[in-house]
């Protein structure tokens, strides 16, 4: 055995995963872009001389790079760059918070279904199947139509339509991990079922959960853009990447820049999270360890 082969054997699992992740250039690029988008949205508004809701009727439809407005102004003379940054705060926050809620629900449902199996498992998993029958956008819009639109509602509703995939992943993991020695040992020690589920089984399924969480952020950002574009998500004057595109279609001929900036931002963010999830899957999947 060569020294190189020896050194890979001696790598800790975390180090090996990091090495595999670093090889995935697109995932790295995704991580960098996400960092730039997050920092830009968080700090950018402090650096701009414009307020995102400041209406300046005299400067309507200023094209990009005209004077101080880097990305131009919209139909009310508001600075597009400022709105893009503030919209980024909203869209990225919704993406992440909706992911956290969806993961929490999905993990709990999946853990109970996988651990108890039998009738409990069957009922919970059939519920998952049933919710998956509804096309996501239809379900999301129907729920949004019945409730008051707003930041919290939109976030919760997106989470309500995005937890099922995670539940399936966790259920399968917990069901197979339940039979392993460490779980049986914990049971023999007299640990409670809840403790075994959430302190022993779920942490051992962390790799697929992390991957699912990353892909879930991408999905949530995309859903926010759909529901806000259609007018049932974030309401003006607050900006989100989705609702900035709400009026863009009307001005497509005269002011196409209004459609370009938010669309590019959404695509960049969603693509980055998807590539990041892909890279994490390659890095964390233990099957990749087999040469």
């Amino acid at each position, binding site marked *: 055995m060569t020294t190189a082969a020896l050194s890979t054997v001696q790598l800790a699992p975390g180090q090996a995963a990091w090495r595999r992740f670093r090889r995935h250039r697109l995932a790295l690029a995704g991580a960098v872009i996400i960092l730039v988008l997050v920092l830009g949205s968080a700090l950018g508004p402090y650096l701009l001389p414009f307020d995102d809701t400041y209406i300046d009727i005299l400067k309507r439809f200023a094209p990009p790079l005209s004077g101080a407005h880097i990305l131009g102004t919209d139909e009310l003379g508001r600075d597009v760059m400022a709105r893009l940054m503030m919209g980024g705060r909203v869209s990225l926050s919704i993406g992440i918070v909706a992911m956290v809620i969806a993961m929490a629900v999905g993990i709990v449902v999946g853990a109970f279904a996988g651990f108890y199996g039998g009738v409990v498992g069957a009922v919970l998993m059939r519920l998952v199947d049933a919710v998956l029958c*509804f*096309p996501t956008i239809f379900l999301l*819009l129907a729920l949004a139509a*019945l409730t008051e639109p707003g930041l919290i509602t939109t976030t919760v509703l997106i989470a309500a339509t995005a937890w099922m995939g995670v539940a399936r992943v966790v259920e399968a993991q917990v069901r197979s991990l339940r039979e392993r020695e460490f779980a049986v040992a914990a049971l023999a020690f007299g640990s409670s079922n809840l403790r075994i589920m959430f302190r022993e089984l779920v942490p051992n399924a962390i790799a697929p959960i992390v991957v699912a969480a990353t892909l879930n952020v991408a999905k949530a950002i995309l859903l926010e853009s*759909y529901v806000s574009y259609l007018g049932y998500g974030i309401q003006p004057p607050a900006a989100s990447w989705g609702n900035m595109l709400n009026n*863009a279609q009307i001005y*497509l001929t005269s002011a*196409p820049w209004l459609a370009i900036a938010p669309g590019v931002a959404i695509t960049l963010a*969603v693509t980055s999270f998807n590539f990041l999830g892909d890279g994490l899957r390659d890095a964390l999947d233990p099957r990749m360890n087999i040469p």
Partner: protein
Amino acid sequence: MARYVINRLGQAIMLLVIVSAIGFAILHLAPGGPLSQYAASAQMTQEDLDRVTKQLGLDRPLPIQYLDWFGRMVRGDWGRSYRDGEAVLSVIGSHLGATLELMATATIIAALLGCWIGILGALRRYSLFDSLATVGAMIALSIPTFWFGLVMIYVFSVKLGWLPAGNRETVGDGSLLDLLHHLIAPALVLALVETAMWGRFMRSSMLEVINQDYIRTARAKGMPEWRILTLHALRNALLPMITVAGLQFPTVLGGALVAETVFTWPGMGRLFLDSIGYRDYPVVMGILMFSATMVLIGSLLADILYAVVDPRIRVG
């Protein structure tokens, strides 16, 4: 086989019951409930409201109401639109054709293009084409459909003037050529995500098949490469695509809603959005239930068809 079909049918019916319960719960747990439209009207006094509640049987226990509602749904009585009093099912029926036309066109484009890309990617694994296709598929899955639609309109309608910016036909024309002309852009927009999914699944299916023993056997006995690929590999690799078509159905249906909105296509998705705007809950709930039922039937058909063409499924 019969046993498999009956088994699968039973599961589907059970799912339909749960699906309908979810729909019913959404309708009733929402603030205001099914009467919120009338309650908001200044014409109605509390007395009227109480009477209507009794007339419509909304004062009965929820489980009874659910059974009643489910029974009427199964018999085809889906209530009436608030907007014009037309039966919900006939409203949906008059918009379904346009949606199915769009979905079918997009699916044919996506299946042909996606399979071609996927097969080529698998045969030339890690080539430049394969890398570009993989990255392209990921980007296609990440682009908001409506934004891609806006870009299409800007490029092909506003700038080049090649394609109409919306609607299903030019008023007063309506010839086949005119219909096709209007179909191109929305179908391509809807096909984008689908093509990416077909391509990804086709690639992995093909990769799995060409590493099988029977392919090696075919190669070992000196069969020409093109015969191995078409006769052995492709036929087996295409089988799982039946499941892919079933799995994609909800995504395509959701995508159709978005494409219809951008291109003012008079289909079910647009009807759904319009109905939400009018707070026409019977139609909204009707379309929600109808689309879920379509998805359910779609996956049932895909599973049964798969079992018909692949005997391994029935036994397993």
